[in-house]
């Protein structure tokens, strides 16, 4: 890539590529990788601790102060355990799958702006690993690759429960990806750019500039719900439903490969919290009472605060809600979220042209929504009608005549 093309995204490349730029990039990558790994261990501890508080338990408190090193201890234990591969497994894919789910989780964090712009040695440095012009598309692409990690893990295990889990994972994640993409399109339309940095910049200044309020709450809510389904967190964790599927896609995994899935799950929680914050909650934007120096660290504090709040929200959901039934989950995705996000996209698009278009499209969407609701209710009636219920499997229907002949109560029917 030529420097000019690179500079379109990131002011760091304005002076062209030289060794100082490369050093800065490498430092940024190493720093955020280290932060991510540390954050994952903390996140696992945080989740276990908060869940235990919500259930009046104590939670991990043996390893380190407040049990902070419990994750590390678990990791070391898993690392030294025997690594089993089932005989029926597809060995290559079985080994590949954990990495397919970890790497995207980490890569998504690369485009999340976690701070403002810092000037060091005459270079203005964005506090994010990379700011490619396609920013938000990378998030969608990587979360789509994350589906492969789980799906292939379920398939390659050569075992029935993981396979069911893999099927569920692919269906669930693909259907929620539609709603996810649709809400992202709303944000991108408002910003006029795919770059995460410009999405954040367009929300800066005041709380009513945040996409949460600018776009009227609905896209944010849909996005959050879709993200929960996308990361397979409770109450949408049908993929690893312990009561139905043993352990889900990771049933056959052990040792460090299992640890990688665990890592990916919690990394996804963090990165998706960060993405929610970036898209709808102004990213690092927030009140700064400390003047010039505050403008360096306050954005980071705000970003961390918002992300931690969302991490807590995810944990809270897990503590409060029971798991959804699989068909209800798909219903919610296809029948509610996708039409709602599509309709809201149309309304926002209308209002961006002018008020008349907006009102007209809103009316059209309401009419369409009512029609859809009627269609669903008719469909639901059809589903629950007697004729639609299939006879129980494994029992042949016996004719009343034969039944009478077999039973000794009435001999009129058969003998003559």
């Amino acid at each position, binding site marked *: 890539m030529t420097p000019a093309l690179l500079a379109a995204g990131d002011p760091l490349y304005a002076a062209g590529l030289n060794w100082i730029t490369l050093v800065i990039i490498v430092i940024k990558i190493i720093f955020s990788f280290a932060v991510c790994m540390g954050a994952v261990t903390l996140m696992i501890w945080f989740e276990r601790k908060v869940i235990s*508080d*919500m*259930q*009046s*338990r*104590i939670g991990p*408190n043996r390893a380190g102060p407040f049990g902070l090193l419990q994750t590390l201890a678990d990791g070391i234990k898993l690392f030294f355990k025997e690594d089993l591969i089932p005989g029926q497994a597809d060995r290559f894919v079985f080994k590949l799958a954990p990495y397919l789910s970890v790497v995207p989780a980490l890569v998504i964090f690369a485009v999340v702006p976690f701070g403002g712009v810092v000037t060091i040695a005459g270079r203005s440095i964005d506090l994010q690993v990379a700011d490619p012009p396609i920013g938000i598309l990378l998030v969608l692409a990587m979360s789509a690759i994350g589906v492969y990690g789980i799906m292939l893990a379920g398939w390659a295990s050569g075992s029935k429960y993981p396979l069911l889990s893999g099927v569920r994972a692919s269906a669930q994640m693909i259907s929620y990806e539609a709603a996810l993409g649709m809400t992202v399109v709303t944000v991108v339309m408002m910003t006029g750019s795919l770059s995460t940095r410009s999405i954040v910049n367009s929300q800066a200044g005041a709380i009513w500039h945040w996409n949460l309020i600018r776009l009227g709450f609905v896209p944010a809510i849909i996005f959050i719900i879709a993200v929960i389904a996308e990361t397979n967190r409770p109450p949408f964790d049908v993929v690893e439903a312990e009561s139905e599927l043993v352990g889900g896609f990771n049933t056959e995994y052990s040792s460090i490969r299992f640890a990688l899935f665990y890592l990916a799950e919690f990394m996804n929680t963090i990165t998706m919290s960060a993405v929610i914050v970036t898209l709808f909650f102004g990213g690092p934007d927030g009140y700064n009472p400390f003047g010039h120096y505050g403008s360096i660290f306050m954005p980071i504090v705000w970003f961390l605060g918002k992300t931690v709040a969302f991490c807590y929200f995810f944990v*809270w959901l897990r*503590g*409060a*809600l029971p798991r959804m039934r699989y068909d209800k989950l798909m219903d919610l995705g296809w029948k509610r979220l996708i039409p709602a996000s599509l309709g809201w996209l149309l309304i926002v698009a209308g209002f961006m042209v002018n008020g008349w278009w907006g009102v007209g499209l809103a009316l059209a969407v309401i009419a369409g929504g009512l029609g859809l609701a009627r269609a669903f209710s008719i469909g639901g009636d059809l589903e629950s009608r007697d004729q639609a219920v299939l006879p129980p499997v494994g029992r042949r229907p016996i004719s009343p005549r034969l039944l009478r002949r077999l039973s000794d109560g009435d001999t009129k029917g058969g003998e003559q």
Partner: protein
Amino acid sequence: MSIQETVKKKLSFFGGFVLTTKHLTRPRVTREYPLEKKPKQPRQHGRHVLNRYEDGMEKCIGCELCAGVCPADCIYVRGLDNPPDHPVSPGERYGYVYEINYLRCIHCDLCVEACPTQAITESKLFEYSFTNRNDAIYTKAELLVDDNGMPQKLPWEDWREGEDLMISGWMRATSPAGNADFEGVVQWAGELGYGVRAPEGGQSGLRDDEATHTKPIREVMEGHLLAKDIPAAHKGMQGRIWRAKISGERNKAKIEALKTRRKVAKAKKKTAS
């Protein structure tokens, strides 16, 4: 369904969130066992103890009723005639061999019920730890009380200070049947180290808890009672004040223990310097 009911039903979705938030501040139900031991129930069935009379004679007469009644077949007893020059028990015979296999024992306490001389009772000790099957068979050497009337302290058992009553062997397996005639009547012989123990309270309404040294069972296990069986003074606001008083006393004791520990540590430092 009225509108209010519908709204209530819809809002019940948030019930889980409210409940989990409430639980954040509630006291924890978990006990951190090795650090903190739960007080034992008055009739906890722990490991057995072979008792002795106040003059040091063994109570066991080798009658093998315990072995006969044992549903798990874990007791092995052999009796022998008392040597005339140095009798082991006051009777004709004594328990020459007495072994209990704790891999089989189910702690049903039928042996305690069967024993005609209260020779075998159960302590409240529950910490067994053996690494081979031979160690699981406790012989007379381990079961018989020592010269102070205390059970033998085995190397794997964890005895704490202030748990004397818990460790002591005396315990009736069941309560004295609630017959008012036996209220306050001592039904057992004296015991080495403890003398004649106070009689147990029966189940009559007029029982004298002070005289019989028994706590009313509802004080000991309030958490297991139905709401109607809990005394009014322990319910509602009154109960809160009562509990606060108790916990205040407990905290005082804890703080005092901490202070003394600090003093000891300081004194140690001084002597070291």
